């Protein structure tokens, strides 16, 4: 199916509209998780297998879980879903309407809008004795530990200091 990437990007925008219309945080987190899954599949379709895996593990498996139970711990009231209040429903409908207009306009054109998704992801290398096959994105991300040694040190130190900052903020006084 040639239009799978287009359909997935439309679903991504609709998921973004789902949490930017500001329902209760639990439903916003649900829409963010769905958008994350769809975005991960988009990245996988364009040949970024390693980056999709990183996004699934770190983003959806790490940050969304932390978001989920922090939201469940800090908020206790009657949750407001997409159909309950007029503002949330209005925002959702306006966002979806704008997306539908954009999709119809893009489909009415006869040429490619932004970029043509050519074959991506695999690199063929020719070494001394034979030829091999490497994935572009995992090799590129592996170069983080070669050319970007100092960047890894700075990022690791940032995370370490971040943990201390979080502890000090939550402790309060």
């Amino acid at each position: 199916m040639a239009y799978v990437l287009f359909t997935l990007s439309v679903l991504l925008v609709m998921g973004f509209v789902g949490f930017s219309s500001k329902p209760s945080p639990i439903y916003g987190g649900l829409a963010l998780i769905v958008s994350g899954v769809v975005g991960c599949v988009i990245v996988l379709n364009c040949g970024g297998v390693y980056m999709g895996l990183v996004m699934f593990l770190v983003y959806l498996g790490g940050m969304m879980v932390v978001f989920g139970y922090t939201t469940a711990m800090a908020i206790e009231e009657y949750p407001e879903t997409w159909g309950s209040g007029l503002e949330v429903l209005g925002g959702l409908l306006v966002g979806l309407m704008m997306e539908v207009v954009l999709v119809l306009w893009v489909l009415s054109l006869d040429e490619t809008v932004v970029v043509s998704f050519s074959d991506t992801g695999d690199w063929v290398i020719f070494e001394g004795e034979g030829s091999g096959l490497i994935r572009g994105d995992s090799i590129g991300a592996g170069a983080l530990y070669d050319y970007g040694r100092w960047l890894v040190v700075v990022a690791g130190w940032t995370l370490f200091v971040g943990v201390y900052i979080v502890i000090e903020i939550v402790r309060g006084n």
Partner: protein
Amino acid sequence: RSHLVASLLCLEGMMMSLFIMATLIASNTHFPLVNIMPIILLVFAACETAVGLALLISISNTYGLDYVHNLNLLQC
């Protein structure tokens, strides 16, 4: 009555869209070294999320709920 955590969710959405865009640019322009940028972006977005959630917890401990109109100490 809008929550503070809705703004944190929108920030997360922005970081995710930046990650997807950078990864697709790295794949489409056949420039694998650019894949370093989304990973580092994810690291610093995680730090930002952690600090934002810590602030959310401290606000929720002070005021009970995280409604934005509770943050009115500087109101004249």
